[in-house]
Each structure stands twice: as C-alpha cells, then as structure tokens.
C-alpha cells in the first residue's frame, strides 16, 4: 500500500520538552537503565533527541553495559514487530537479544518511519534499522581495531565483546568503547520520511547463512508487562489538572445543532459544555460526571438535512447506479472486450461486500494538553506521529518543513487495523483542550467506536471470463465499483481528515483510491478496472470510508478468488489444478501446493457435497493472493448446519511465503489472528443502517467471531526465503480467507453465495432456494 507521505521534519525541541516536564536524562553513549528510558509516564519524558535521519546516533545507542537501544519510528500492536526489530539489530551487532531494546512511541525521540502501515514494519523500517545496526558494528569494530592494534578482518564479535580471532586475550567490549558518539557518523538517507525512509551505509549486511538470532522464536518483549499487568496503556495516562471529556453525537447522520440547553447539566459537578458549530462535547473533573453530562445534556438537533440516500438493504443497487467520480484500469493486457464479445463461452458473476467497522476492542482514546502554541498529545493511534501535526494544524501553528511544536506520545491501546477511530479521538481531545485551556482526556463510548469510526468500504465487483473450446481461459475482466478507501486519509494529519474537523467545517480533501487483485494469473487478455463513487454523506459521515486491515484486500479477493473458482469449474478443472495451471510466479505455485498438501486436497471438478454426522454439510475451498511481495494460499475446511445455515470453519491450512522469517512462533500467531479476524468479517460482519443513521452500535448489533466459533485447528507451512529479506506479514493473509470459505460453501452445497457476510440466514435462504 502506498501512503501519501507528509514530508515534515519532527525535530529537536529540547527547550520545549524540558520546559514542559523537566525532561529525562538520556545522553547518547551513556548507560541508562532501560526501564527508566521506557517509563513513558505522563510526568517523566525521555529527553528530546536530535532526529537527523542521516546520523547513525539517531537510530542506535550503545550503552556502557554494552546494551543497545534501537530507535524505531513505527510501533507494535502485539504482532511482535518491536521484538523482530530487536532481533534484526542484535543479529547485525552480534549481541545477545536480551541486550537490545527497541524504543518507540515518541515523536521527539524517534524519527517518523510512518507508524504502523501497510505491514511494512519489518520490510521497510526493519531493513533500514538493520543497516544502521550493521553500521554501528562496523564503527565499533574499527574503533577496536585502532585500540587493540589488530586489523579489522582479524576481529570477531561475540555478544558485544570484540576480540582478536588469533589471540582471545586481545579484547574490548562495546561498552568500553563508549565515548564514541554515533551522532557524528553519517549514513546515506534517501531523504524520505514515513514508510519509504531508507538508509545506506558502508557496512555490509550479514549473510543469512550466518544468522543466529533472526529466525528464532524470541518471546515477545511487550507481553509479560501486559499480562502481569504493569504496562501503562494510553487509557491509563493521567496529566495533572486533566479533565475528562465525552462527546455528544447526533441522533441521525449529519444532524446539526439547533440549540443547546446548558442548564440541563448544571446539576452535575463541574460539568461544562464545549460547543462550536456542530462539534459538541462535555468535560468534567470526574470521569463518571463527564459520562452523565454527555447523556443528560439536552441538545435540539436540526435533522432537516440529515441521513443517507439509501439503506444497508438497498446499498448494492445504489452502488451499481451511483455516478462515478473516477475510473481507471490498473491492469490492461491484450483486448479483453473483443475477446469476450467474440467468445462462445462467457462466465459472469457479481459479488457484494458491505460496510464494516474496525470496532476496536476499546473505542477511541486521546489525551491532549495544548497551551501557548505548544502541546503534547497522548494516543494509541498507529499513526501517532500524525497526532502532533494534527494538533499543530488545529492550533494554526503548523508550518511546512518546520519543527512541529507538539509532542506526540504513543502508548498501547486496543489493536488497530488501519484508519480506525483513534485519530478522531485525538482530534476531539485536541479541540477540547484548546477550548478549555486544560489537559483533556477523551474516551469514546462503545456506540461511537462502532458507529462513528471510518468504515471499511462497501462495493460491488463484476467479473467476466471467456473460455475457448479447449477449455482455456482467454480473457479475464474485473471491475470494482465502490467507495474510496481513502474517503478520509489513512493518515490523520489534518483537521479535514477527522470527524472533529468536519464538524468544525474544515476543508477536506477528496481522494478516489481503490484496489486491484494481486496475483500472477497469466491470462492472455486481462483487465482490472475500478470506479470510485462519492461517500453517502460528504461531511461528518459515520459511513466515511478509509483503510481497514488490508485496505480493500478482503473485498477485492473475495470476488477475484471466488470467480477463479467459478472459472475452474466452468472449464472442468479442479480449483487447485486450475490455479497451478495459470499462476506464473513460482512462489505462488509453492504456497498453493503447500496449502493443498497440508489439507490433503482431494481434486474435484464438481462440488462434492459431502455429509458428516448429523447431516452437516462439509466442504473445502482454496484461495490465494499476493500482497506486497508476500504470498499466501489458504484452504478452509468448513461445516454447515443445514437446519440453521450456520457455518463453522473447522480447519485452516495455510501455505505462506513472507520472504525471510524473523520469528516463526510470533509469525504463526500473526497469521492466526488474520485468519480469525477475516473469518469474522466473512461470516458475521455488516454495518446496518437506515435512511437516518447507523445501527451497528455495539457487539450485539455488530457481532464478531466468538470462542465457540473458533476453528479447531490451524496448520501452517511457512516457506522461508531468507534471500528475499523480510516481507510484511501483518495483513497479507487477511485477503485470502473470504473466498476460501465461500469456495468451501460451494463444495459443500453446490451453491455459490456472492454476498458477504455469510450469515446463517443468508446461507439457509440460499440452501432453501437450491
């Protein structure tokens, strides 16, 4: 996924930081207990650092006890990426993994590498830091060479101790070499911030054949503190003088404020209303008082222009008929139209995907302390660097290419899977703090987390294929029509991208970005087109759309891989054999074979309609897709209760290739998490709405997968390709699951269901019709 990068330098602000909180005491090259460094409580900041990306010291510090701190400009939300970064650095530096800590989550301490984005934690930022670590080792070894009088080639490093290969008595530790300051060592920086930030240097990266730490299952470093529980989450941040804020949302989408009866909450201790244009919230010293005030405040809403032009029931016909804002073909090989119109055997199908909500485990949370043209924001957002830019823009103090006078601090929160509500929560906190002059903590309520986050876009996907008399596919046509995946940006760096900004009337950019299938099918004539349509409300819409884990991936590949299955059967081929016949990338071939082998795939050219005990319908389906140089194939084995239509995915079999595997144990869990979340989206999830408002407001109105729905088994074959380096694993397998399940439904029943979610009622209705 390409991010639109904001090329901004978030740089040294020592004075500001020190004046804010007294500062910490990290000095490059000095030993400091790492716990103290990591203690990012609201009243103990680490000192701001020089953040010139072209200086080695910006990225790495080696301390007197030979421990190492790596400064990382993304963050981890439980997939173990910070641990993987530590592994990459430990490997290049030749130190034990225990010595390496990954510092992240503070815009004054680590350079912006894009936050969590596009599964690029290892593939981009990890590769940059690996180079920095190799460079640090080289610098230290050269220094040791001078001290010991031994040529560099005759030195070896073992857990941070540099010694002469021929004379073990000649040795010195990294810690003893301190006094050298990496801030004077230059790296070649490609001039970019964000995901694309790259570093080059003199040092040669270790050959993978020598790996000792990379490829091993180091335990997640963050985990014990969250289970024992000592870790401070963003929800625990408390700032002196802080007020608790809650927002007040309208009864219908786009309703405006006619009048506010402030006296309606005068009986609640210290409660104040903050209202400007259509932005309305309350603050109070005590959290429960703020909640009560938000519930009891009387607002007269003007609903004359509120609501949506359609409902969730009619949505897909609405999409079919909607005016197109922008249309493009991302892939166009040969002449698809001529081939199809000249063909005697054309297969067509249309697929539908609903709006889905991120519904993070905890709704949005933001804390902001804005004063006198400066400030600090605390957030659990995966794009936390944007929080500082966002605040500066709300404050009107943002200048391009200048230092941002706001510090953004990240702390753990509920898992975030793209552009969730977190950026909107920060925006609310910023506005409330600006208006009250006090630090404000805003916690959204559950209904807001479901109903008011940016949604995963709904779409209709039309496909056509032409088959010649020999059974060969001669043309493949694919057209995605739906809402933009960046109706609001995946970045959160401008008021116009946030709900608060919309309510305050800030200008907002409009973008028409979509997605195409990612595969290596070598059809002679092949086209991937998309058409993007306007959101259902222009401003402050609860159905504004943005990135939701693997943006447009599940939607697009539900359709493309269901249709590949349809083509396979139409040509009289087995779905696995068909895919193997047409894929042209050997890595794709390998994962498809691996998944099929794990599943003991039984070739078929018609649905098998197997029955198990109690008459349950049993089927298996396969699907595969690439994503940014990773590739996965999944076989789903399902059971359907014929009386209720309920689907249970009993087993998943996965063939995966993420290039270099850094940590196999944690990678398995990352894959499992994707499989389950994607299964949930496939089977259960749809945002329901009527002409007035959104009705997905909690876990009852928007259920997700439960313990009882969990598969019995997940089997994974991971193909390790160290020569390729790490490819992101955070989300690529997400997109493969929906079609695997839908294809299994076909195998079990002979019925093709082309609409998500595959709820019991939809499946039952389809079975009854068959």
């Amino acid at each position: 996924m390409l991010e639109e990068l904001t090329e901004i330098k978030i740089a040294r602000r020592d004075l500001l930081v020190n004046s804010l909180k007294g500062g910490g005491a990290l000095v490059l090259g000095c030993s400091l207990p790492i716990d103290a460094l990591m203690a990012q409580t609201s009243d103990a900041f680490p000192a701001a650092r020089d953040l010139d990306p072209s200086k080695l010291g910006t990225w790495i510090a080696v301390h007197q006890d030979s421990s190492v701190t790596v400064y990382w400009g993304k963050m981890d939300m439980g997939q173990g990426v910070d641990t993987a970064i530590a592994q990459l650095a430990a490997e290049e530096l030749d130190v034990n993994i225990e010595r390496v800590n990954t510092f992240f989550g503070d815009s004054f301490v680590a350079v912006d590498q894009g936050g969590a984005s596009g599964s690029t934690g290892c593939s981009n930022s990890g590769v940059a830091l690996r180079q920095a670590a190799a460079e640090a080792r080289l610098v230290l070894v050269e220094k040791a060479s001078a001290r010991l009088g031994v040529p560099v080639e005759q030195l070896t490093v073992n857990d941070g101790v540099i010694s002469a290969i021929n004379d073990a008595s000649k040795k010195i530790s990294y810690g003893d070499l301190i006094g050298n300051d990496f801030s004077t060592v230059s790296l070649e920086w490609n001039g970019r911030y964000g995901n694309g930030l790259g570093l080059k240097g003199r040092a040669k990266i270790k050959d993978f054949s020598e790996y000792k730490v990379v490829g091993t299952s180091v335990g997640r470093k963050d985990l014990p503190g969250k289970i024992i529980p000592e870790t401070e989450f963003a929800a625990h941040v408390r700032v002196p003088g802080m007020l608790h804020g809650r927002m007040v949302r309208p009864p219908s989408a786009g309703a405006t404020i006619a009048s506010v009866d402030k006296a309606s909450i005068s009986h609640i201790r210290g409660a104040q209303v903050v209202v400007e244009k259509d932005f309305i919230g309350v603050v109070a010293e005590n959290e429960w008082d703020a909640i009560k005030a938000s519930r009891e405040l009387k607002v007269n809403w003007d609903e004359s222009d509120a609501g949506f032009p359609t409902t969730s029931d009619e949505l897909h016909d609405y999409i079919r008929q909607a005016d197109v804002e922008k249309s493009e073909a991302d892939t166009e090989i040969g002449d698809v139209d001529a081939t199809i119109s000249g063909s005697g055997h054309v297969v067509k199908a249309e697929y539908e995907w609903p709006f889905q909500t991120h519904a993070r485990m905890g709704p949005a949370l933001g804390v902001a302390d804005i004063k006198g043209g400066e400030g600090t924001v605390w957030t659990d957002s995966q794009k936390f660097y944007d929080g500082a830019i966002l605040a500066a823009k709300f404050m009107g103090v943002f200048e391009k290419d200048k230092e941002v006078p706001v510090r953004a601090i990240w702390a753990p929160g509920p898992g975030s899977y793209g552009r969730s509500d977190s950026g909107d929560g920060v925006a609310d906190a910023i506005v409330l703090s600006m208006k009250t002059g006090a630090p404000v903590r805003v916690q959204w309520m559950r209904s807001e987390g479901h109903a008011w986050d940016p949604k995963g876009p709904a779409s209709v996907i039309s496909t056509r294929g032409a088959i010649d008399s020999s059974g060969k596919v001669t043309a493949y046509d694919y057209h995605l029509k739906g809402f933009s995946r960046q109706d609001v940006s995946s970045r959160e760096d401008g008021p116009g991208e946030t709900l608060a900004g919309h309510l305050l009337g800030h200008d907002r950019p409009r973008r028409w970005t979509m997605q195409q299938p990612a595969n290596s099918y070598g059809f002679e004539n092949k086209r991937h087109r998309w058409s993007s349509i306007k959101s259902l409300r222009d401003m402050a819409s609860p159905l504004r759309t943005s990135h939701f884990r693997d943006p447009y991936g599940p939607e697009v590949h539900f359709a493309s891989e269901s249709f590949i299955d349809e083509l396979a059967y139409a040509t009289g081929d087995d779905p696995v054999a068909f895919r193997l016949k047409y894929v042209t990338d050997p890595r794709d071939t390998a994962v498809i074979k691996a998944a099929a082998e794990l599943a003991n795939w039984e070739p078929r050219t018609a649905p098998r309609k197997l029955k198990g005990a109690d008459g349950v319908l049993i089927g298996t389906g396969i699907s595969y897709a690439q994503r940014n140089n990773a590739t996965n194939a999944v076989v789903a084995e399902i059971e359907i209760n014929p009386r209720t239509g309920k689907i249970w995915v009993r087993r998943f079999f996965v063939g995966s290739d993420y290039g270099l595997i850094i940590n196999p144990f944690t990678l398995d869990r990352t894959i499992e998490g994707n499989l389950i979340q994607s299964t949930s989206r496939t089977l259960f999830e749809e945002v329901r709405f009527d002409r007035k408002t959104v009705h997905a407001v909690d876990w009852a109105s928007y259920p997700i997968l439960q313990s009882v729905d969990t598969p019995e088994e997940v089997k994974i074959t991971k193909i390790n390709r160290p020569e390729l380096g790490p490819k992101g694993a955070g989300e690529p397998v997400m997109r493969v699951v929906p079609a695997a399940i839908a294809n299994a439904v076909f195998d079990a029943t002979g019925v093709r269901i082309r609409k998500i979610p595959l709820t019991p009622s939809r499946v039952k209705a389809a079975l009854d019709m068959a």
Partner: protein
Amino acid sequence: MSKKFTLNVDGKSHVIEADPDMPLLYALMNDLEKKGPKFGCGLAQCGACTVIQDGVAIRSCVTPVSAVTGNIRTLDSIGTKENPHPVQKAFIEEEAGQCEYCINGWLMTAVAFLEENPKRTDAEIRDLLAGLQCRCGTHMAILRSVRKAADEMAG
C-alpha cells in the same frame, strides 16, 4: 449525590467517594489505578473490565459501586512476574493475545472457572469463554493457553 464507599480490592480496603450508580470500573481505573481491567463497552458485552468478586467473574463496567459487597480480585493481584498465576504463565508461554486490551477478560474469566474446577473439557472451555470479545482474533492462542493452564491446575 456522592457518598463514601469502602471497597475491598486485592486484599486492601479503600474508601472512595462516588455516586452510588458509578460503575466499579471507574473506581478501579481512576481511584485505585489498577492496570488490569479495561473499558471496552460499558455494556457487559465484551469482558474487558472483568474482576472476580468472591470467586465469581463479574463485569465491573455495569456493577455500581453501591452494589459491591464482596472481596474483589483484579488481574493486578493474581500473580507476579516471578510467580505468575498458572493462567498468566500459560498466556505468556503461548503468546496469547496481540494488543492485550481484551486479555483481562479472558484471563479473569478463566481464572474464576478454573479455580472453581480445573477439570474442564475443550468444549466446556469454549462455552465458558463465550461472550468475551477479542478483535485481534487471537482465539486460537487463548484457547490453547486456557487448556494448558487447566491441565496444569488439575495437576
């Protein structure tokens, strides 16, 4: 009107001042500064706020402070890094959870039913954990962890 309440939490007694209808969760997070229980829904639908009252897992987000009568245990007190509870130990070994925001609910619910009776079948464990949410989709590792802890506790 706010009143004084005495809460017995993690073996200590605390006097707090609050509205009688304020849910216990806010006392735990704000007055007692507990790190385990989290706000997930406030509707008894997710379990993120779970604590154990006299051996029974309850949802502190819908339990008014005025209704708290027994001894409350939170995740903060069930184990230490040196001596984790068997359920905590299993969750760490299995790397259950991702963001860990939900994990308090799964852990505390499992602690309550395994301390009551550690001999549980896989099907029972699935049933007893129904109604807890995990948006990161880490159910596989959670179920493996609870199985492992149950086996260890059953001895």
